[in-house]
């Protein structure tokens, strides 16, 4: 068997939810510091929302004890309902966020496409954005220069290449963004379902590129709600449910188990 490209060991991530999840101001810190000081003196303390504050009711586990090994050249599909932890798993593996439990080892250059057009600047021209976006996605300068014509042709924006992208139509913008992403050639490709946007033709182009990546011996991690795509592109699939890995195996088996569960949940509601 080929070498291991990705090894995830008991990966877990908990997030804090509640009123202070997003931002906090210095005033909040001081106020909360004072509040927790008071709390020791007199309990219970009421939060602004009116509920009783507690230290550990505000944590939610989005990923819990997920382990798997991915060998070089394997294409792994990740399925699951919204909020099952799929995107969090991809974010951890692409090092955007850290796990709070467990660890993962990754061998090789990782290219993460969690969104197309990351870092596109509206004031810059198509040409400039190709260079910038390519660099953000992890391409080398020489690589971008070499693939430049191909990217422009793929996007079909030759005439507008020196126009600021803020003047592009939504479709042109999406095509250019996707064209850059499609020419990324890392050892390990991590793709989120957000790629599946645009019209039917665009989607087909996207799927073809994914197929190329999967068959060219690259290691692929692919999140999608499109079960047919998972079955045709991937050599293996895992199913996440509330942060836990429910099944790991041949895509057809995993998707059918996932579907069976979804139907039974639906049945319970009827």
């Amino acid at each position: 068997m080929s070498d291991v490209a990705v090894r995830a060991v008991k990966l877990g991530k908990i997030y804090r939810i509640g009123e202070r999840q997003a931002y906090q101001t210095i005033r909040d810190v001081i106020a909360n510091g004072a509040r927790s000081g008071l709390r020791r003196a007199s309990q219970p303390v009421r939060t602004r929302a009116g509920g009783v504050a507690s230290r550990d009711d505000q944590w939610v586990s989005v990923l819990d004890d997920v382990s798997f090994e991915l060998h070089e050249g394997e294409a792994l599909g990740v399925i699951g309902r919204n909020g099952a932890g799929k995107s969090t798993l991809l974010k951890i593996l692409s090092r955007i966020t850290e796990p709070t439990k467990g660890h993962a080892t990754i061998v090789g250059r990782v290219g993460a496409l969690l969104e197309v057009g990351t870092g596109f600047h509206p004031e810059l021209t198509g040409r400039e954005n190709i260079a910038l976006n390519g660099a953000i996605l992890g391409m080398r300068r020489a690589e971008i220069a070499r693939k430049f014509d191909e990217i422009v042709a793929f996007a079909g924006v030759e005439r507008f290449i020196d126009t600021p992208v803020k003047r592009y139509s939504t479709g042109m913008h999406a095509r250019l963004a996707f064209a850059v992403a499609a020419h990324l050639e890392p050892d390990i490709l991590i793709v989120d379902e957000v790629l599946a946007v645009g019209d039917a033709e665009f989607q087909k182009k996207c799927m073809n590129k994914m197929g190329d990546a999967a068959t060219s011996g690259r290691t692929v991690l692919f999140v999608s709600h499109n079960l047919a795509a998972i079955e045709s592109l991937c050599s293996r699939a895992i199913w996440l449910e509330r942060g836990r890995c429910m099944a790991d195996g041949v895509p057809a088996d995993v998707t059918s188990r996932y579907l069976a569960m979804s139907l039974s949940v639906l049945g319970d509601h009827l």
Partner: protein
Amino acid sequence: MDQTSPARRAITVQQSTGWVSVQPRELWDYRELFFFLTWRDIKVRYKQTALGAAWAVLQPFLTMVVFSLFFGGLAGISSGSVPYPVFAFAGLVPWTFFATAVALAANSLVEQERILAKVYFPRLIVPTAAVLAGLVDFAIAFVVLLGMMLVYGIVPSAAILTLPLFVAFAVLTALAVSLWLSALNVLYRDVRYAIPFMVQMWLFVSPVAYPSSLVPEPWDAVYGINPMVGVIEGFRWALLGQSEPSGPMLAVSALMVAVLLVGGLLYFRRMERSFADVV
């Protein structure tokens, strides 16, 4: 790809705890992205402005005119043997660099939250690129300063050889302050509102409109706690060749920058892991 190539290294992702090192090797791996982000910040700077890069000169120049009128003229602040306008402008050039670099860099992480949430790279690149992009404005204003020296017939002394040192000093000061503010800004949006006020106050406590010689002898070293004192006095002396800054003052300023920079790097690296979750 061969086994020794840096990209082929095995990477372990796990929760980091406490203080983490700066990892210069990884920064080096991302040098091209650093180059592109700096280039973008320069490129985008004056897009769709009528005056374009003239803004780089207008701001310090008009400030110099106002300073000359009120501080040099009406208040009669002495600028030694150098005409007051040149004196003020020589202080405003490094000051304007510092003020704009800090204002841009401090907001850089927050403004690029989308990238932070979708792509991994060493986050240190973002504020550093914003600071370095400010050097273009600095260079333009510097040429105008040389022109003014020519008009007033000021010939630089041998001290001009130390100029690159003081420019580097200015960059490091801006970077040190920016690391703290940009990381704090991710957690506390108060920073965004505090910056214009902070920069304004900082101008008054820096020797831009007045010479640091106004501060009496034993206190000039204390005055050096503001690192911009060392930067501005050093820059002015290197160019205009008069009123050499006192040794203790420069030393205190340099020490302050070193402390701020190392502390800023450590703090930034410590907070970096939560940026994508919090921003």
